[in-house]
């Protein structure tokens, strides 16, 4: 086997290894930059909620704990997805750490996917710890087993999937624009995404064909994040069907794949001056 064949073979075999290495490094960066310290704040919020709010709500304490816990989980997650997500690429370019990376056999797509998976792993740890915290709070309030402890987890899964979509959008924007603009645009997408159904309604009710076209395009471009918002139903103990969960998770996988492919296309043409 000549040197060329050997290195090309090693390169292809190492493809997943490189993505895993970059993801692991992004996770380690988040941990060492104390991103997970938000968990402390979450635990304090939840403990306070469990002790005080439950007593004020006249038998509604379980519902309030789930509402408060899952909403805080989404809010904290959105902050991490946006502010850490936009820095994933920007920081590397600004600090020139990217120079030593791309001189190695690392494709730009591999780099983006690795970074994305690293932040998804950070969010997963965050969501799992917070979910466990909410479950523990429910057990504390009931002083025993509560079926809600298990029933909230499909909603937690969908919160995580929503955060994964939002992270991919933050990464897309950060592959070509400034951090401030990326944060703003990602936040807009988060807000508009929760009113996706209204966009469709607007598209059909408009008289101008231009406006109809604009709202239709927005409806299909912006992810339908309302699909992932099951916090209220989870607080009532409702569990979504497995087919619903499978459908929205598949939609998320497709959406994230398209977003990451677009980000890779843009990033692959970028000059690092």
């Amino acid at each position, binding site marked *: 086997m000549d*040197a*060329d064949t050997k*290195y*090309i073979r*090693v*390169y*292809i*075999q*190492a493809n997943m*290894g*490189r993505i*895993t*290495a*970059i993801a692991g*490094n992004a996770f*380690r*960066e988040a941990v*060492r*930059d104390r991103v997970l310290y938000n968990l402390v704040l979450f635990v304090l919020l939840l403990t306070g909620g469990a002790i005080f709010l439950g007593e004020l709500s006249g038998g509604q304490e379980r519902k309030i704990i789930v509402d408060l816990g899952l909403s805080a989980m989404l809010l904290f997650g959105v902050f991490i997805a946006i502010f850490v997500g936009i820095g994933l690429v920007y920081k590397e370019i600004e*600090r*020139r*750490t*990217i*120079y*030593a*990376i*791309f*001189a*190695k*056999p*690392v*494709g730009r797509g591999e780099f983006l996917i690795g970074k994305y998976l690293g932040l998804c792993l950070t969010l997963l740890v965050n969501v799992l710890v917070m979910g466990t915290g909410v479950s523990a709070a429910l057990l504390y309030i009931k002083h025993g087993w509560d079926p809600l402890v298990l029933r909230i987890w499909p909603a937690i899964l969908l919160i995580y999937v929503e955060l994964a979509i939002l992270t991919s959008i933050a990464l897309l924007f950060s592959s070509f624009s400034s951090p401030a603009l990326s944060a703003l645009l990602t936040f807009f997408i988060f807000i508009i995404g929760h009113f996706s159904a209204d966009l469709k309604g607007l598209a059909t009710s408009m008289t101008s064909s231009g406006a109809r076209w604009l709202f239709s395009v927005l409806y299909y471009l912006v992810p339908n994040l309302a699909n992932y918002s099951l916090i209220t139903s989870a607080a009532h103990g409702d569990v979504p069907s497995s087919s619903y969960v499978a459908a929205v998770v598949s939609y998320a996988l497709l959406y994230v794949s398209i977003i990451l492919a677009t980000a890779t296309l843009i990033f692959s*043409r970028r*000059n*690092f*001056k």
Partner: protein
Amino acid sequence: MMTVVEINRLTKDYEIGFWRKRKVRALDCLSLTINQGEIFGFLGANGAGKTTTLKLLMRLIFPTEGSARILGHDIAEVAMHSRIGYLPENPYFYDYLSAMEFLNFCGQLFGLSKVERTSRAKELLSRVRLDESKWDTQLRKFSKGMLQRVGLAQSLINDPEVVFLDEPMSGLDPIGRREVRDLITALRQDGKTVFMCSHILSDIEVLCDRVAILKGGRLAHVGSLEELRQQIDGRNVVEMVVSGTHETALRPYLPGGKDLRVTATPTGLRIELTKEGDVDEVIIALRKTGGKLVSVQPLRQSLEELFLDQK
């Protein structure tokens, strides 16, 4: 001799300005070849296009025109980068990692096994003389010189065939510079090819087999130091040091014209000749005036003089 790096009419334009964009040419039709096993020095003033060339070769930026091949492969081929090493100028690495963790991460990017990564990292950190007590310290606590050593180590983690070094002596103290010089010499002995940009001309002069000088993005000169001296200044200056005589006594016997310059020294005279044939006439003149010949030596322009001539 096998060509390792082949640069063909490589050109890079940058667009500057927000509304009215205009093009600035950072590199203009650079063509170069670098052979296997040589240490090639890349010289030029600030903004001459040295770092732009390296960034193009490392595919950090894309050429406006032209092409380049390393080890027979187009620079756009990602797999080819398994066979090269690169030290960026003023390296900045992940400062939350320790030196060992960073080298381990770099090894992972090359697909090395854990055992290979660990042994290679230890070997390289020893080779660049990084104090063992600092191996597990976070890079944010490192001095510039220590970071430079880590940068050199990471550029060699994959045992590359070609190493590109952008200002490898930057931030190093005299001992560190000496150690890096020895390291680069050892790389040549191992059969590696080294392409280095440096502002420290004495290092280039000591280390490099061939040198290229860039001026305003264009290749001004390329060749061995001897060839460069010939290209830039065809004169061969010979210096003669004599004693026991005076200029006034010697002058009538010396050849005239601009090819000879006499300077008085505390012990005698220093005579610079640009015609080698005049040496005999000076010796005859010395015999006639009772002077003594102390030394005769060709005077070579230092690389610094050559470089300054090009600025």
